[in-house]
């Protein structure tokens, strides 16, 4: 599209038939992608508990994804979409062989494009006399920019206050490299370099700020295209699972940058002087001015200030990825299981025994894990999202194999004994779909544990 010539300041431009058609397609396509079309989204603004806000709520109010066609995961626990919420309604569900990672996962984009192409012909038929759409184009660029920065805020602030990749759990430090999925390794490489995580978060914050203001919008779009474009590639390479969310920033970045490109090319490569001639809507009437300022301030206060505050609060007091309930006091550590009995019969140590525990970790929080030599059904989930209940917070164990099993503990004080004596009740983490019929954890398992001091090279 010959966009920069189109945006002549004074005289009304005339767009070619192709330019008008391409605009109509883009408009419908991006409209479907950025404007929430479910009633639930709008209801959310009225059903949110504003007195007890949590970042989960901001995520819900940050827009929706256009996905009338559902891709059914081939197995349970395969689908995780982070904070992106599925629409309740779907008119078609398909089970694609390449699942939720390949080209098929973009099916809703193709659908939106298809609707755009058909819609553009109808629109063109009804609107034949139109010479140009420069005003609408202006608002579409602004809309895409705002959709990008609003959708980005969760990822930004969960890195600025490093909770997206929280501290490594002891279980992770004691799991062999080959027992993690590629996705998990991609994520946890940030878990021990929080400075780098914060740096990445600040880079995303810069993109958000640049996209919010007109003079910096082109640079913001370019940064978004480059940085999140790279993340899109990485998500495909590692089966990271949020390639769709990332790809939106890549495509949006390219779309917002497009009108500036010709000027940049003319100036730098062709070495010709340039008079920028981008068109901006003139907010003339007081009502328009008032609306613009209110809307912009609202976006800033809600998605920058409030979101930052809530993420900080979560970082400081909860950190939703790992269970919030503290573990057994002073128990954090790696333990060698020196003695092990099943029904009071000693089972000697063996690395190839499917029942005998080899070692145990206790975390700062209420998770315990142990290793045996056994076959488990492993879920490939990433442990993302902002789970409310401790038992749903699977970040530390998701995407991890080997003979390691993870349990959440409830500490139950025994009334008649000393207060410091506690009985530990293990609850199977319900998200982890282990095969347990042959392997019920009962109190007849008894492990005497002696601490072994382990120095980690990493620290």
């Amino acid at each position: 599209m010959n966009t920069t010539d189109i945006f002549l300041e004074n005289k009304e431009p005339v767009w070619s038939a192709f330019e008008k058609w391409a605009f109509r397609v883009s408009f419908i396509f991006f409209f479907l992608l950025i404007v929430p079309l479910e009633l639930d989204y709008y209801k959310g603004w009225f059903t949110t508990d504003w007195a007890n806000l949590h970042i989960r709520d901001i995520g819900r109010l940050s827009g929706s994804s256009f996905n009338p066609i559902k891709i059914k995961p081939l197995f349970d626990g395969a689908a995780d979409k982070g904070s992106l919420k599925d629409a309740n309604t779907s008119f078609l569900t398909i089970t694609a062989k390449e699942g939720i990672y390949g080209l098929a996962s973009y099916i809703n984009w193709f659908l939106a494009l298809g609707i755009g192409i058909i819609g553009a012909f109808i629109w063109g038929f009804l609107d034949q006399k139109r010479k140009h759409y420069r005003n609408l184009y202006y608002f579409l660029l602004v809309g895409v920019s705002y959709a990008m920065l609003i959708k980005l805020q969760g990822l930004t602030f969960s890195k600025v206050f490093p909770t997206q990749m929280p501290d490594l759990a002891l279980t992770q430090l004691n799991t062999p490299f080959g027992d993690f999925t590629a996705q998990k390794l991609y994520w946890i490489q940030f878990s021990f370099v929080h400075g780098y995580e914060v740096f990445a978060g600040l880079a995303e914050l810069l993109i958000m700020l640049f996209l919010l203001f007109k003079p910096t919008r082109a640079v913001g779009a370019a940064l978004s295209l480059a940085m999140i474009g790279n993340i899109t590639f990485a998500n495909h390479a590692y089966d990271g699972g949020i390639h769709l969310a990332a790809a939106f920033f890549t495509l949006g970045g390219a779309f917002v940058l497009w009108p500036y490109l010709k000027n940049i090319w003319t100036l730098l490569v062709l070495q010709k002087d340039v008079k920028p001639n981008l068109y901006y809507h003139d907010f003339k009437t007081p009502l328009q001015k008032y609306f613009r300022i209110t809307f912009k301030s609202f976006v800033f206060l809600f998605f920058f200030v409030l979101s930052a505050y809530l993420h900080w609060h979560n970082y400081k007091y909860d950190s939703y990825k790992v269970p919030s309930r503290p573990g057994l006091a002073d128990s954090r550590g790696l333990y060698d299981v020196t003695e092990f009995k099943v029904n009071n019969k000693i089972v000697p140590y063996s690395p190839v025994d499917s029942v005998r525990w080899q070692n145990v970790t206790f975390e700062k929080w209420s998770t315990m894990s142990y290793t045996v030599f056994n076959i488990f059904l492993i879920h490939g989930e990433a442990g993302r999202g902002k789970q409310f209940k401790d038992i749903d917070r699977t970040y530390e164990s998701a995407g991890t194999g080997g003979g390691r099993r993870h349990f959440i503990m409830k500490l139950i004080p025994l009334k008649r004994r000393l207060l410091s004596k506690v009985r530990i009740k293990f609850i199977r983490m319900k998200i982890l779909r282990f095969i347990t019929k042959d392997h019920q954890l009962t109190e007849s398992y008894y492990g005497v544990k002696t601490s072994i001091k382990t120095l980690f090279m990493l620290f």
Partner: protein
Amino acid sequence: MSFLNISNHDSSDWKGYEKILLRFFFIYFFILVVPIDWKFYQELFNINWATFNFYSLFSLTKYAPQFFGLVGYQNWLFAGFIATLATIIWTFSNTNCNYDSLYYWLRVILRYRLAIGIIAYGFLKVFPLQMPFPSLSNMHTNYGDFLAWKIYFHTLGITQGYEIFLGAIEVVAGTLLLFRRTTTFGAGIIAGFTGNVFAANIAYDASEEVYSLYLVVIALFLLIYDAKRLYSLLVLEQYTIASKFEPIYTTLGLKRLRTTLKGSVFIFLIVLGVSTYANYIKEPYKLPKKTGLEGTYGFYNVREFKYNGVVIPYTTSDTNRWQNVVFEKWATISIKIAKPVKIDTSFGDVYHTNDIDRNFESAGVGGRHYFAYQADTVSKKLSLQNKNKNHASEKFQLSYRFLNDSTLVLSGVNEKKDSVYAVLDKINKKYMLLEGRRKSVKL
């Protein structure tokens, strides 16, 4: 304002302080970028073209002067000091020169220096040599037993396609620098890309911090040229005057010099690319060359173990008892023993001819003991030597015997003449890393 805007064919008006700055930067970058260090020529003339491998060329691309044993940033300070002195002398000696030309040539030197540096690293990833796929031993090492840089390398090494993609970005950005009109695009990509590499090097302690910043600084200096124009065009949205600077080569000698230099850079890069590819195909330089003993590749549980004839049952605390053994595809064995490892803190990133010195697999990682071995398939003997320089005295003379496809008996003596006897059972393990997330997995 001449740093930022040479706007027409006439020579531009350089303010006094700009001239001083340009003199400083010219000398400063000249010292840092143009090979004036004799060690460069020593390396260059020591290249043995008969046993030529790409790494000799690659090390040339990493040139940065080293003064009197100074390390890292200290060399920059020293160059700054010399440049300051020289600038003062230059300023007071009242010599006149064409500052447009001076600036142009400085940019030419920096463009080519940066292009060569970034493309060389690009090739190392396009032909994924820099981050090889983790070895089987490394897959059997706990996450916490790696140094941070090794985790960073392995996390890239598991997705060779992504490594190639990152390498391609470097090659493309470097190529854009070879042409004057696309320089800003190349420098912009490198400032972002290598800027991130620099941050990662700090975060993961990955040894290339100084060199990556060296490249970033050059990229930023090249970016300054168009910064004001871009600011005016994109931020202020004002009428913006383009740089119309075209170098004019007044003499035939100058034209020939330009063609020769440009040609040799292209030839150098092509030779570097081809030889890097050859190394990747024939013998990835970070891994040992020699193939391992046939039919042994795998992870083994040590079912039975005797030390000086005495059976030691399973234990994770005995410092003599082998717990498990990995046979690599190449001639390396790694053994899990409770004996502590004094970690090899090098980065395993240098080319070595001998397998024993190719230590990428054992550098920056604890948990296991790594041995290079010589196999004599006639007398069925293995001769093991610890690859870790801190444990170089550890040696085993073992004979091997297959009980069946998956059971192997090793027996012999160590360097202290203590006898060892181990029965190894191969475990057909499935790895989450290789099974992936796309299907439901039973491990």
